């Protein structure tokens, strides 16, 4: 410890002596132009720009240059890199969840964080996580549809905000702000692979900007990522000799992204704006290996079914904003987004079809669409009162299309059975919202916000939510903030309408069926399923910000109570015809989540343009199930699932981010610590140790327009420990699955890369 103190003191004293800083007022014009302004966000108060000191709730912001120096090219990884409490494991052998990653904020559910793109609600993925992954039972936005090269900054609101933004904003809100005017054209090429020699990955991104009159722009970003699988499976001891057959690791994936962002301003200040997001992902991962069986029509030596996802996504937004008489500003917009997930199974077979079984199957399609029309009216009054009022109409659709009959006939395709005609659905609903949001700057020291939002959904009815938030600047260095409010999350159409059943030959040799049923299916109703209600939440946060002239230090406590959280029950044994087990979604439990964030950020531009950024962030959260409301989810039949809610995500995590820049060099270092977590297997909780990872990137500007970087993520190849006391053919330290899929950093190990970036 003494050594650490000594090192710290030495470092700071040394830099103070070497690079004593003159007042910015005495600096040159060039120095001022090289000085970065305060991080500001608009997310905590519906558009009003606040810095950390003024914000009425805990906010964070990540800028494009920080993203560039992280070395990550997918948004989910970027957020995991910067935000402790943002959890995004890398599941495998989890069907569709291998291809669309779930993420959580503050240890809460994957669908309890609202995602905005340029302030507009982004649609969710069609995929519903139904396996035993983090995020089970939810369908979240697929963050990896957005090219990170298009992003100017990411704003994170760590606070409930349903009274401002509507459904889902329970754990927080993430607003992705796209690059606007003034950015250079650029091309980046990055390639690398894992220290284990696999997982080769190539990323190519291009950003083109066309300036328009009055600082308008058309910005286009195109990106493609091609990643080969990583393989961390253990030997299959069902084989003699044991051999690695099943794939356990990251999937093979190819992603194509395109994003157009434009603003067309007019002489009178009116602006027409738009974004068009297009994404296609092809991803392939395996199911468990099917061992040799001479009774099969073919594939007698065993086979490895490959589940392939063809995911397509689009989001189109058009809007107009400007000024009306009486200094009222308006913003009218329409956003339509859709996501489809086509399932295929290759290199497989349907046992029931014998020799006539195909080896490739089309298993069906999940599709979701969301269209939102929104109008905001805003007026700033001279007495410091700011009023925003608005209305929103949203239409949602969710469909399931059945696959080839061969994919579901009899025992169905091995690896993943297809969606049957009985699973096919076309569900829709609409909702409208009216809201008011008033901000009153009583004095330069005291500001408060009161927001209220009324919503009516065609399926479950109405909900009204309110939020009060305040900021008090006790001194010019110290401010306090608090927020209290209610929120909700509407049950997704997928949760209400998803079904997938599969069949197997039971011990008596007859075909038995089990699976997930809609809450309105007779099989589920007969077991007690009822229409889903919205999840309701209450939140409280209090925090303080200390701002010297030099740094920010922030500490926040948060408490969020959720009633009627929706869960997918585990299999409930039944005897309805040939149906032997059903599971369905139910408003199962009440939870409370509380925790703290402590964050300190420091930024310095020394003489001769040496620039140093350091930030430290500690996050702690704990979720407790306070009540189980549903007889279909019990400690007996759903122990693993209930335990996962409380214990399968790290309760604490830390980041130390350092960036040093002196032209032509830039060095970025990120140390991350992920706390312990556990997973219940065979009725027993299995503990996994905390992990520390290090990410590093060194960049050298070869020319004014050309940067070359070398770097690595998890450079010391930290791996989660294997199951400590679990031996087994499937899950176990000596099994096919040696690592927990809950590992917050995955289990693929170190990734090293080189990168070239051209800016012109």
């Amino acid at each position: 410890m003494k050594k650490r103190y000594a090192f710290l003191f030495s470092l700071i004293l040394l830099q103070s002596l070497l690079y004593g800083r003159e007042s910015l007022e005495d600096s040159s014009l060039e120095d001022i132009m090289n000085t970065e302004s305060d991080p500001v966000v608009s997310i905590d108060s519906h558009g009003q720009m606040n810095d950390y000191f003024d914000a009425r709730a805990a906010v964070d912001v990540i800028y494009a240059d920080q993203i560039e120096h992280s070395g990550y090219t997918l948004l989910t990884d970027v957020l995991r890199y910067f935000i402790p409490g943002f959890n995004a494991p890398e599941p495998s052998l989890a069907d569709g969840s291998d291809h669309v990653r779930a993420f959580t904020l503050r240890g809460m559910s994957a669908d309890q964080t609202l995602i905005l793109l340029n302030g507009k609600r982004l649609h969710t993925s069609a995929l519903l996580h139904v396996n035993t992954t983090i995020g089970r039972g939810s369908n979240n936005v697929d963050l990896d549809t957005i090219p990170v090269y298009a992003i100017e900054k990411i704003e994170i609101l760590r606070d409930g905000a349903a009274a401002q933004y509507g459904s889902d904003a329970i754990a927080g809100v993430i607003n992705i702000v796209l690059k606007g005017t003034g950015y250079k054209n650029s091309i980046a090429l990055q390639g690398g692979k894992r220290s284990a020699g696999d997982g080769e990955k190539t990323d190519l991104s291009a950003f083109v900007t066309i300036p328009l009159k009055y600082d308008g722009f058309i910005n286009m970003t195109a990106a493609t990522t091609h990643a080969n699988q990583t393989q961390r499976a253990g030997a299959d001891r069902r084989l003699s000799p044991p051999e690695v057959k099943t794939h356990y690791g990251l999937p093979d994936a190819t992603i194509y992204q395109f994003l157009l962002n434009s603003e067309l301003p007019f002489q009178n200040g009116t602006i027409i704006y738009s974004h068009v997001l297009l994404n296609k992902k092809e991803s392939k991962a395996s199911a468990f290996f099917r061992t040799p069986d001479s009774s099969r029509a073919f594939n007698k030596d065993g086979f490895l079914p490959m589940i392939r996802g063809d995911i397509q996504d689009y989001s189109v937004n058009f809007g107009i904003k400007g000024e009306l008489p009486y200094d009222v500003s308006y913003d009218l917009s329409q956003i339509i987004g859709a996501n489809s997930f086509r399932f295929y199974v290759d290199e497989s077979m349907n046992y029931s079809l014998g020799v006539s079984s195909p080896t490739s199957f089309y298993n069906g399609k999940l599709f979701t669409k969301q269209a939102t029309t929104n109008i905001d009216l805003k007026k700033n009054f001279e007495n410091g009162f700011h009023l925003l009022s608005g209305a929103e109409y949203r239409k949602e659709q969710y469909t399931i299309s059945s696959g080839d009959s061969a994919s579901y006939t009899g025992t169905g395709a091995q690896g993943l059975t297809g969606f049957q005609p009985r699973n096919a659905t076309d569900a829709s609903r609409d909702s409208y919202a009216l809201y008011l949001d008033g901000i009153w700057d009583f004095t330069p020291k005291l500001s408060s916000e009161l927001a209220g939002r009324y919503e009516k959904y065609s399926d479950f009815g109405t909900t009204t939510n309110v939020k009060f938030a305040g900021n008090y600047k006790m001194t010019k260095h110290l401010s306090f903030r608090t927020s209290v409010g209610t929120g909700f999350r509407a049950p997704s159409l997928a949760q209400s309408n998803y079904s997938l059943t599969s069949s197997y030959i039971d011990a008596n040799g007859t075909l038995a069926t089990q699976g997930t049923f809609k809450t309105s299916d007779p099989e589920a109703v007969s077991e007690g399923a009822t229409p889903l209600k919205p999840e309701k939440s209450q939140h409280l946060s209090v925090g303080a910000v200390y701002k010297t002239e030099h740094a920010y230090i922030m500490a926040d406590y948060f408490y969020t109570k959720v009633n009627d959280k929706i869960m997918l029950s585990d299999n409930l044994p039944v005897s309805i015809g040939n149906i032997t087990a059903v599971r369905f979604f139910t408003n199962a439990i009440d939870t409370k989540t509380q925790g703290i964030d402590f964050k300190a950020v420091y930024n310095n531009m020394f003489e001769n343009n040496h620039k140093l950024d350091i930030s430290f962030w500690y996050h702690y959260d704990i979720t407790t199930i306070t009540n189980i409301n549903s007889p279909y989810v019990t400690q007996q039949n759903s122990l693993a699932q209930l335990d996962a809610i409380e214990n399968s995500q790290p309760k604490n995590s830390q980041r130390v981010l350092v960036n040093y820049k002196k032209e032509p060099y830039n060095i970025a270092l990120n140390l991350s610590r992920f706390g312990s977590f556990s997973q219940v297997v065979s009725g027993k909780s299995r503990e996994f140790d905390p992990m520390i990872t290090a990410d590093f990137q060194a960049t050298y500007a070869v020319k004014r327009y050309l940067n070359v970087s070398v770097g690595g993520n998890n450079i010391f190849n930290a791996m989660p420990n294997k199951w400590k006391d679990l031996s087994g053919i499937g899950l176990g330290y000596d099994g096919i699955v040696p690592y927990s899929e809950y590992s917050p950093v995955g289990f693929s190990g170190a990734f090293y890369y080189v990168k070239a970036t051209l800016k012109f």
Partner: protein
Amino acid sequence: MKLKFIFIFFLLISSLSAYQSEKYLEALIIGKVAKYVEWNTQETKDFIIAVLHNPFADILDTIYKHKTIHGKKVKLIYIDDIGELPQNTNILYIPQEDAAQLPDIIDKIKDKPILTISPIRGFAEKEGILQIYFVARKIKFKINLDIAKQNDLYIKSTLLRISEVLQKDKS
């Protein structure tokens, strides 16, 4: 022990650097760019910076108290109407909130030797002279050189080189 370590760490680094609001940087820039501009006007005692609907609170007063520009004492004038603009104003800062009134403001000061500065979007193309904007948190300039010349202001090449310049006859 860990918390103590963290506390000491930030206590130490808190004495090193500065976070700057956009408004503070804008306020600094007003005086800095003035050094790269020459006014062909009659000699006056003060260098007058007029600010419409002051968005800076007391930042300008703090920075420019006892400061001189071109050897003249800086005099800050805060106005709520363009009609209140003093004679011999050197710089007029027009805030974002006056975007809707910009054509009227520009019309009232047309051909006067006043350096107009504003963060209003499209300001330089809307016949303002020096537009301030931020890209990646760093301040940038756009200068309408035609209007500057029309207002009999001479802008030094040092400033032009680090700015985006709008000029009709620019090849």
